């Protein structure tokens, strides 16, 4: 369709109708792909063409307006072009306004960043439209700072809204910021709180980046909010949105130099040095002094071979370690440091001696706090705890699991207990896999459990691999690589690790409420149970564990925290992988059927992408199970 400039009295409404009809039928790309570049050219300098273009879009009937506007926003190469093409359509037409300010930003989230830039840039370019920009920002902030939105909306939507907020902020001018400074501040506080509360690290980071950016904008002088997080591509992209690259903008955008000025002010003042002070620049000793009679030669040095670095000796006996750590002589910090560093190896070398004092040692380690600044203190303590637990599993596991539900422990300590149980279980169940064997994809891959909440991701990967290996095995027969087998030491103690943890989860204590605020710990507990279940494969207690776990999952299946739900789904996966198929079908048929329908629900309706994926995997596993049993000849 080619435009021929007609007479000035020509009515364009017919063209608008055609345009609208084509767009509503889904052909926006084709028609606008031709139309928009042509119009861009024509409207560049010619005012008449601009007005014609505006008239064109204004005349599109309301029922097709959305499609047309969306098409234009998508096709326009830049905000200024969009401004020339659409003019003040959003101000004049109610439907267009709704689409631009509400629908695209708040109700949809599949659009690209470029589209957001176009749209928000368009709103910022004319003084009639700027109030809309402010309104948009307010509504976006409302959505960003609402706790239910943070909990229930998918991560992609939250990313989209965050981007939109940052782009809006980049367009705001000083007087506008002044007028809404209070609301910005309040939303920032609210929103930061909700985001930091979330159990998913990605959401926390999103919240931190946006909060930092808002703080940067509203506090032009004085300290700015600064969080500590690892920068990755996503955060860098988000931060780059705050700065507008000035291309064809009429309005001077909030410029780079403004930002860099602030950055300059934030740099610490380099301490001014006195003019008279000299930095240490060694003066080369005169050559002549060598020629002088060196009376130092008369002085014969003594033997100094014993002059070595001072080493503090760590105690050699475990009971001595206990004495040092319980610290009656609190001044001897060097000895304390040396003891902490040496403890793990001592425990492993003296299993008999450790067994005599295992519970006491576990208690000391659980309460051990950092007295001096040792590098890697947390890891040293954890390794020592794992060593104690693997040397004497039953009493120490009893102690640790009982302490998990006791009063007056910090959340960090409770999560430490869970981490230690998992690491020890891993060590007990496959002791040969500490760095010696190569990871073979078919059977048990070597598992590295890093500290921190990312362990769930690695486990998902491992479980995925195992699932893949299982399916492959079903189709192609047993794989050829068989690793040397050794008795699973976890067998005798799995129950002691598992059942006490699962017992009291619904009993709130004064300082610890798993089902209430402490859902982070609940999430970690669920993931821990999944791992313990996974490691209990081929143990005697596995069926009983499976039943208990299934009941546990059933009770919690509607939990609002997506991290917890992911854990529950991992539990199901571990269960399906570890409990022998015959046992599953024998003991847990009805529960499994109920679970299957729940999984179907999750797969379709759960807002979190990871949950949906895990549910799908579980359903596949169940399918495989059924098929496998049908194949087995009766």
């Amino acid at each position, binding site marked *: 369709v080619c435009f021929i400039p007609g007479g000035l009295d020509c009515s364009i409404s017919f063209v608008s109708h055609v345009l609208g009809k084509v767009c509503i039928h889904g052909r926006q790309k084709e028609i606008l792909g031709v139309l928009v570049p042509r119009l861009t050219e024509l409207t560049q300098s010619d005012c008449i063409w601009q007005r014609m273009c505006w008239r064109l879009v204004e005349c599109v009937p309301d029922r097709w307006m959305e499609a047309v506007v969306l098409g234009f926003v998508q096709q326009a190469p830049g905000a200024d072009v969009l401004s020339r093409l659409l003019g003040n359509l959003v101000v004049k037409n109610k439907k267009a306004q709704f689409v631009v300010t509400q629908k695209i930003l708040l109700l949809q989230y599949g659009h690209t960043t470029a589209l957001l830039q176009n749209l928000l840039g368009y709103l910022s370019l004319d003084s009639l439209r700027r109030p809309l920009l402010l309104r948009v920002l307010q509504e976006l902030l409302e959505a960003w700072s609402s706790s239910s939105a943070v909990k229930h909306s998918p991560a992609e939507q939250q990313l989209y809204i965050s981007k939109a907020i940052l782009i809006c902020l980049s367009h705001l001018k000083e007087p506008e910021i002044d007028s809404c400074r209070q609301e910005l501040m309040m939303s920032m506080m609210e929103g930061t709180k909700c985001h930091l509360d979330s159990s998913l690290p990605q959401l926390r980071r999103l919240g931190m980046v946006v909060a930092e950016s808002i703080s940067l904008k509203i506090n032009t002088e004085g300290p700015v909010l600064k969080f500590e997080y690892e920068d990755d591509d996503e955060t860098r992209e988000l931060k780059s949105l705050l700065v507008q690259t000035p291309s064809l903008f009429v309005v001077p955008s909030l410029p780079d130099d403004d930002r860099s000025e602030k950055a300059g002010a934030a740099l610490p003042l380099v301490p001014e040095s006195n003019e008279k002070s000299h930095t240490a620049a060694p003066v080369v000793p005169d050559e002549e002094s060598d020629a002088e009679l060196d009376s130092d030669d008369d002085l014969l040095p003594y033997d*100094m071979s014993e002059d*070595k670095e001072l080493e503090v000796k760590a105690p050699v006996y475990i009971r001595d370690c206990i004495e040092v750590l319980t610290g009656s002589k609190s001044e001897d910090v060097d000895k304390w440091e040396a003891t902490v560093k040496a403890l793990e190896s001592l425990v492993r070398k003296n299993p008999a001696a450790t067994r005599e004092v295992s519970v006491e040692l576990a208690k000391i380690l659980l309460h051990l706090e950092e007295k001096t600044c040792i590098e890697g203190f947390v890891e040293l303590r954890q390794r020592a705890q794992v060593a104690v637990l693997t040397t004497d599993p039953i009493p120490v596991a009893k102690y640790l699991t009982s302490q998990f539900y006791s009063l007056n422990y910090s959340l960090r300590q409770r999560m430490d207990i869970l981490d230690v149980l998992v690491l020890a279980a891993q060590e007990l169940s496959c002791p040969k896999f500490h760095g010696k064997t190569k990871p073979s994809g078919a059977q048990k891959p070597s598992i590295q459990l890093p500290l921190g909440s990312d362990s769930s991701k690695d486990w998902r990967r491992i479980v995925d691999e195992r699932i893949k290996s299982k399916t492959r095995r079903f189709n192609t027969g047993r794989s050829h690589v068989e690793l040397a087998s050794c008795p699973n030491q976890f067998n005798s103690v799995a129950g002691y690790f598992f059942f006490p943890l699962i017992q009291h989860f619904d009993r709130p204590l004064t300082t610890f409420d798993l089902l209430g605020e402490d859902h982070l710990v609940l999430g970690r507990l669920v993931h821990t149970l999944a791992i313990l279940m996974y490691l209990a494969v081929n143990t005697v207690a596995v069926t009983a564990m499976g039943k208990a776990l299934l009941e546990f999952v059933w009770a919690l299946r509607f939990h609002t925290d997506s991290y917890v739900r992911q854990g529950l789904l991992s539990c199901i996966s571990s269960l399906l992988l570890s409990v022998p198929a015959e046992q599953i079908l024998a003991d847990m048929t009805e529960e499994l059927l109920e679970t299957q329908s729940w999984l179907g629900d999750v797969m379709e309706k759960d807002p979190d992408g990871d949950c949906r994926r895990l549910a799908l995997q579980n359903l596949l596993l169940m399918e495989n199970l059924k098929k496998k049993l049908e194949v087995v000849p009766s």
Partner: protein
Amino acid sequence: MAPPPPDPQFVLRGTSAAVHTLHFSCGGPEPDIPLLFSGSENGFIHVWNLKTHRVDSALDGHGRKSVYCVETMGGKDRLLSQGRDQRICLWDLAEGRTSVTDSVFTAHVGFCRCSLLQVAQGRWLMAMAARSLEEVQILELPSKTSVCTLKPEVGAKLGMPMCLKLWQLNCSSQPVLLAGYEDGSVVLWNVSMGKVLSKLNCHQEPVMSLDFDSEKAKGISGSSEKVLSIWSLNEQQNLQVYKTHELVNAGISDITIRPDKKILATAGWDHRIRIFGWKKLKPLAVLDYHTATVHCVSFSDHSNPRERLLAAGSKDQRISVWSLYAQT
């Protein structure tokens, strides 16, 4: 094959507290007994008889607060001591007396040892850290009049003064002060005008101790890190780093150069005393006797060179006395 390090000539025990400061007084003619004064953490100053190796008297003047500096003023009859009770006491020890004749209230709560310089017969200048954090006050003794207060300029951020040394090139020249500060720098002050002549950043950590050889215009400073810094003073009164020496273990509490300027001794946190040749800082010996950090080292002022001694006081409550390189 280098000989093994020597053993101490003798060890003085009996302070029953960590020894923080030592000072010899052996210069008197016969039949004067050579003495060693030691200040301990329990507030006592012990006067050791170096012939019998026993305590002759114990002076209690600082209210059981640790004594961290002891000096004689022109002979063993007049003693100056500085303690953690924020006081500097002047003692009269002639004819068996043990009384405090005068005292100066310093209001200083740190550990900076004062420095004495005799400017005329019966007149002394004393530099001490004052009440305000970064200041050094110069007093004239025994009149106790203030000569000046050395204040670093605003924003210099030197921190507390850690160690002081007053000296003058000869009897007629101006006295100057070398001060080591908490930020690791050594500052040369002109005392009469109260101005900074030169400032040198030679350490990353606080300067724990320094000593200066006015003949060669060279000085040495030690800090809590592993580096000894040797610096020199040129004609324009500017300090420059001459060389540095890296130690095996970090931490130096005290440095002292022997009066004949041939060797120097350092007291280390690693329980060891190190001896170096002063000319080129050649390591000569490492004396490993003490079992806790060595707080102070001091050379004796014997007129007969063969009798010269080195004493070291340590946290393990013992004073080790050595005879080293006495023949040169």
